[in-house]
């Protein structure tokens, strides 16, 4: 039997399994909220997620994949013995798969990204010694694991605080939403197209930065204009509170008038003073009588209308997350595969190896199949569980997380999308946007950081020795 072909098939199978796993488990993070709020049906959500995950993986997935392939360990150490790298990467993928199965059985919040990085490090240390590890790269990755949830939290905190001040605290939330909607649309499309075009479409075309910036600006503005036109057309029941004399709004206005008159009163001359005093007493009695007879409508539907409007933005931001997720997580599956295939193809480790586009597409397809066969179930479950993430909150959290993930993807840093989203939700919570958050989760996540790396490293080391025992004799026989 052809050994090389055997390893090619093996690594592709294992890589495909990893991609399947990612599609099955993690895509739900992006789409769960939209299904939960009823913005998208399950079928539509799965279709949209499939397209965007694939696009993210195919167009923006290469930088992180290259990090996985060559950034973690010094591949030049394996020049003499490339077969060890093949076994090692296969062992890393298998070890990660095994650890993830174990973790999901116990329900630990572990991340695929952390597991695969730990696994590659594990076999790297065993085979090449401590000096085989690219410590600088590892330090920046480790730092990004801590910083990325924090950054997501900061993004979503400020976005939600801004939304609070401009929309939720506004006297007329629906009108304020209509006014600000195009800006939000612009923001999403601008960031989205900027990340897609800048170094993104290298498989297809490459553009200079100013041109990319201009194009992104153009896309953002045109989408914002489109949304402006649509939202003006939209029929909303903005006058759900009948503007009666005793509404809280008019009482506030009256109070303000009194305040201003008082200022006039203290600064005016004798003649006007008496007149103002008369006005003041009249206004005061009016205000107090209004306050007494103010009837309070059972419930205002202003905020409901706002949420309805934000449903579309939430869908948009969910797509954004799906795209970013595909971009970052496809590397977990195909980074090691790319390394192995490269060795097999060239017979040795090449100095500069790029991830071939077909492999990115392969990873993308794996994710989509995972989503189609198992992931939709998880989306359904998540959707039912996180109905608390209303469209306004969901939009802020998802936008914050997606921006962070894309930023990291651009820098070639493999980070955990789940943890970014957790950070983003906490950010909204800190801005008083959530009803109740379970902070125990944070402890568990930090614990999973500490445990996952040695655990998956040990697994990959174990599997590495098993494969080596089974095959090395075979290899020397050849």
């Amino acid at each position, binding site marked *: 039997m052809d050994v090389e072909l055997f390893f090619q098939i093996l690594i592709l199978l294992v890589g495909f399994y990893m991609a399947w796993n990612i599609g099955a488990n993690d895509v739900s993070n992006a789409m769960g909220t939209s299904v939960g709020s009823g913005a998208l049906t399950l079928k539509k959500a799965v279709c949209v997620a499939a397209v965007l995950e694939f696009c993210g993986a195919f167009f923006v997935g290469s930088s992180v994949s290259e990090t996985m392939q060559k950034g973690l360990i010094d591949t030049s150490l394996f020049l003499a013995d490339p077969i060890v790298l093949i076994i090692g990467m296969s062992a890393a993928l298998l070890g990660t798969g095994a650890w993830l199965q174990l973790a999901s059985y116990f329900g630990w919040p572990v991340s695929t990204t952390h597991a695969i990085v730990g696994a590659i490090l594990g076999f790297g240390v065993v085979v090449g010694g401590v000096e085989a590890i690219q410590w600088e790269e590892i330090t920046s990755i480790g730092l990004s694991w801590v910083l990325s949830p924090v950054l997501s939290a900061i993004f979503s905190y400020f976005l939600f605080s801004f939304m609070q001040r401009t929309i939720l*605290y506004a006297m007329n939330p629906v009108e304020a939403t209509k006014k600000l909607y195009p800006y939000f649309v612009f923001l999403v499309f601008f960031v989205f197209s900027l990340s897609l075009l800048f170094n993104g479409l290298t498989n297809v075309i490459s553009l200079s930065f100013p041109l990319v910036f201009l194009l992104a600006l153009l896309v953002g503005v045109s989408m914002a204009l489109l949304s402006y036109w649509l939202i003006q057309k939209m029929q909303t029941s903005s006058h759900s509170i009948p503007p009666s004399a005793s509404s809280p*709004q008019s009482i506030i206005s009256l109070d303000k008038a009194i305040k201003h008159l008082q200022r006039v009163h203290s600064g005016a001359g004798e003649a006007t003073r008496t007149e103002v005093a008369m006005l003041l007493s009249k206004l005061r009695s009016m205000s107090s009588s209004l306050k007494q007879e103010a009837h309070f409508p059972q419930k205002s539907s202003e*905020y409901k209308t706002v949420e309805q409007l934000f449903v579309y933005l939430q869908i948009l931001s969910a797509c954004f997350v799906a795209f970013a997720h595909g971009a970052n997580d496809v590397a977990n599956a195909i980074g090691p595969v790319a390394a192995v295939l490269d060795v097999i193809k060239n017979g040795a480790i090449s100095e500069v190896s790029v991830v071939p586009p077909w492999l990115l597409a392969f990873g993308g397809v794996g994710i989509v199949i995972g989503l189609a066969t198992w992931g939709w179930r998880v989306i359904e479950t998540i959707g039912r569980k996180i109905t608390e993430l209303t469209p306004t909150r969901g939009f802020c959290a998802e936008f914050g997380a997606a921006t962070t993930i894309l930023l990291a993807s651009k820098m070639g840093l493999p980070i955990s999308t789940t943890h970014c989203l957790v950070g983003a939700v906490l950010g909204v919570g800190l801005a*008083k946007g959530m*009803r109740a958050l379970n902070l125990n989760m944070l402890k568990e996540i930090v614990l999973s950081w500490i445990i996952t790396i040695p655990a998956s490293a040990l697994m990959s080391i174990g599997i590495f020795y098993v494969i080596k025992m089974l095959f090395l004799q075979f290899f020397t026989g050849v």
Partner: protein
Amino acid sequence: MLTIARLFGKSPFAPLQTHMKRVTHCIEKLTGIFDILFKADLEKIDKLSKELSELEHEADITKNDIRNHLPKSLFLPIDRSHFLEILSVQDSLADQAEEIAVLLSFKPLEPLTELQSGLEDLYKKSLDTFWLAKKIIEEIDELLESSFGGIEAEKVKNMVEQTAYLEHETKKKQRALMKKLLSQNHTFSPSSFHLWARIIEEVGSIAELSEKLANRIRMVLELK
């Protein structure tokens, strides 16, 4: 993975409203007692008062349930201690209803035409304050939606102000009734006088506690 789903804790705000419902049941039962106060015999009142005690116990169970499911690791949009205080004041309304019912079941309240209508009036006014405070608790959903700010907060603030006004009116009525009672103390036996005085005071307390509850909500509002 279900990590995201597990991030969301069990919100205590819906249970807070459930607790308010239980408190309302107590108050409604008390109204039932007041309706038959001067018509039925002591046995009937005693029976109703026992039923009210049962309802108060139910409210207590809900209250303890909320407290037990409010771990330190739960992050709320309002301060934990503020939340617990709102719950505690709300529960004291159920206790107050029970207290009054028990007082009424000790011995028949001596009927006195001038005071009778005055007491009924006082009770009604006191309950008006309570109904408004209850309405404020029902607004919590909207407050959560708007992060305790904006037009919704202004609305609730006005409701709180009106609660204070109603409480003031109740207190005026209470003092007037007390004055009336004192002016004709010679017609009472000491025990009857004591009972009347206590009941007038305790009924007024419902308004006092309702205003306190409304003000506790006022504390968590984000006003400009």
